[in-house]
């Protein structure tokens, strides 16, 4: 890996770490972002100097959030990973899904008779703001989809 790529990989690792994800997740993403083609778990592990088991766990996690795509090759039992085309759109879709769940949770909370008025008011304010954010994300998503 050249020095600029190395720097990006480490920076991505620090970013995901700051966001509460393992550093290795960011490093995997940074590495694959700069690779024109898919890479096997072994290749990723070797380039990053970490164990294959560790790469495997976090590559799966990144696939779940929509940033990576898992590929397989005929006659080859290994898993290959590549950054997902439209990965960021998928991340936003994922985010919208979890925001909807959050919204439903707040709605359910507001219906609760045993809630204190103070908490009820707090949740009402949150939910209304949350809805605005949800609308904004949905608008962005539609714009992204129309550009693809």
């Amino acid at each position, binding site marked *: 890996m050249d020095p600029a790529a190395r720097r990006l990989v480490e920076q991505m690792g620090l*970013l995901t770490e700051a966001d509460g*994800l393992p550093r290795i997740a960011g490093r995997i993403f940074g590495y694959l972002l700069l690779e024109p083609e898919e890479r096997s778990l072994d290749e990723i592990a070797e380039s990053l100097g970490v164990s294959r088991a560790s790469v495997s766990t976090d590559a799966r996690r990144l696939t779940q959030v929509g940033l990576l795509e898992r590929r397989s090759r005929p006659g080859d039992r290994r898993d290959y990973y590549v950054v997902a085309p439209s990965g960021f759109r998928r991340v936003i879709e994922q985010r919208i899904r979890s925001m909807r769940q959050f919204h439903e949770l707040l709605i359910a909370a507001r219906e*609760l008779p045993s809630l204190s008025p*103070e908490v009820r008011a707090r949740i009402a304010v949150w939910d209304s703001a949350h809805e605005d*954010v949800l609308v904004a994300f949905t608008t962005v998503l539609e714009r992204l989809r129309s550009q693809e």
Partner: protein
Amino acid sequence: MTETTPWAATFVETMGLLWEGEGLPRIAGRIFGFLSLQTEPCSLDDLALALGVSKASVSTDARRLEGLGLIHRVGVPADRRDYYTVVPDVPARMLAIKIEQLQRFETALAPLIEAPELPAVVKARIMESRLTHKRIMSTLRELLIELRQGATPPPQPATTTI
């Protein structure tokens, strides 16, 4: 501390799962969910007891939530322990966190555009993702301004009167 009803327990657990889905520790989501339903500040001991986890674990994730600006520490006179409550402007803070995450990512990508040795396909990918991030950020920033302007002054937290 408000008594934990079965419903409140479900709320707390669901919040934990939601956070986990976002890649954050489940316990952080549970702490946030629990504090969301409280009218009084809670100590780490209160949290550990209510959530059935160790004080050490609660302490780590309470600090993480404090770092994210979603809860804050309040002092209670004649009590040396740390007490926590949710911040008054949770929605704006949550949105600001998202914007900060996007901004950091976008900033990290910026130097690559100038890197001459990158394959064209990688360069195109990076340019596209920067553009996407910029669009998302500008929409969210407008909304953040609106949220902050529209925010009604929060009720005084009960802590200041204890």
